């Protein structure tokens, strides 16, 4: 119940296309859903995050869509660029305690071809 399932494992998109990465969770206590971006040799960096009281959040070319009833959320990257090539992790946590431990998905390796 603590897992966050992420798909696909890898994704190849042409420059200018839309990249879509999906995640699903079981624990209904989760109330914070961030996406992290990781380049080779670097630590993950927060990209965008959403709370379950909204169904969509957009920041520039990055959009999170959230479906509370289906317990699913996804990352959309519009107008994908070669510089977006990285590994993307979805994550989830709950604030109902002394810790805000993040549970990460298994990651999606995105390659944007020029």
């Amino acid at each position: 119940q603590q897992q966050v399932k992420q798909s696909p494992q890898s994704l190849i998109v042409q420059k200018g296309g839309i990249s879509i990465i999906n995640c699903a969770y079981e624990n209904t206590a989760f109330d914070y859903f961030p996406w992290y971006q990781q380049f080779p040799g670097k630590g993950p960096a927060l990209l965008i995050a959403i709370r379950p009281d909204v169904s969509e959040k957009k920041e520039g070319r990055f959009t999170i869509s959230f479906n509370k009833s289906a317990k699913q959320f996804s990352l959309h990257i519009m107008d994908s660029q070669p510089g977006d090539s990285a590994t993307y992790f979805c994550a989830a946590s709950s604030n109902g305690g002394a810790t805000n431990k993040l549970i990460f998905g298994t990651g999606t390796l995105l390659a944007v071809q020029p």
Partner: protein
Amino acid sequence: EAGVAQSPRYKIIEKRQSVAFWCNPISGHATLYWYQQILGQGPKLLIQFQNNGVVDDSQLPKDRFSAERLKGVDSTLKIQPAKLEDSAVYLCASTQLLSLNSPLHFGNGTRLTVT
């Protein structure tokens, strides 16, 4: 602001040897985390500190792993003795507040190879 500093960047040891990793969080960040990232997987929390106290170490293999943050600033993570399955990147992260609105700031990690 300076980021989370970790050292060393790489470490190669033989199984049954010991190893230690060091982390200096962003100045003023009270919460510090150690994550283990095995190749092809997402980061998994090993231990979380709030100042110099342990908040969560439920996934830390305590028979071989130990961590401390004595003065509530920098931290060390130790493995003794190491096993082959400990080969991973060890990431340190910090956050200013224990709040969902406070993002984690990760260091670049220490890549450990156990042979």
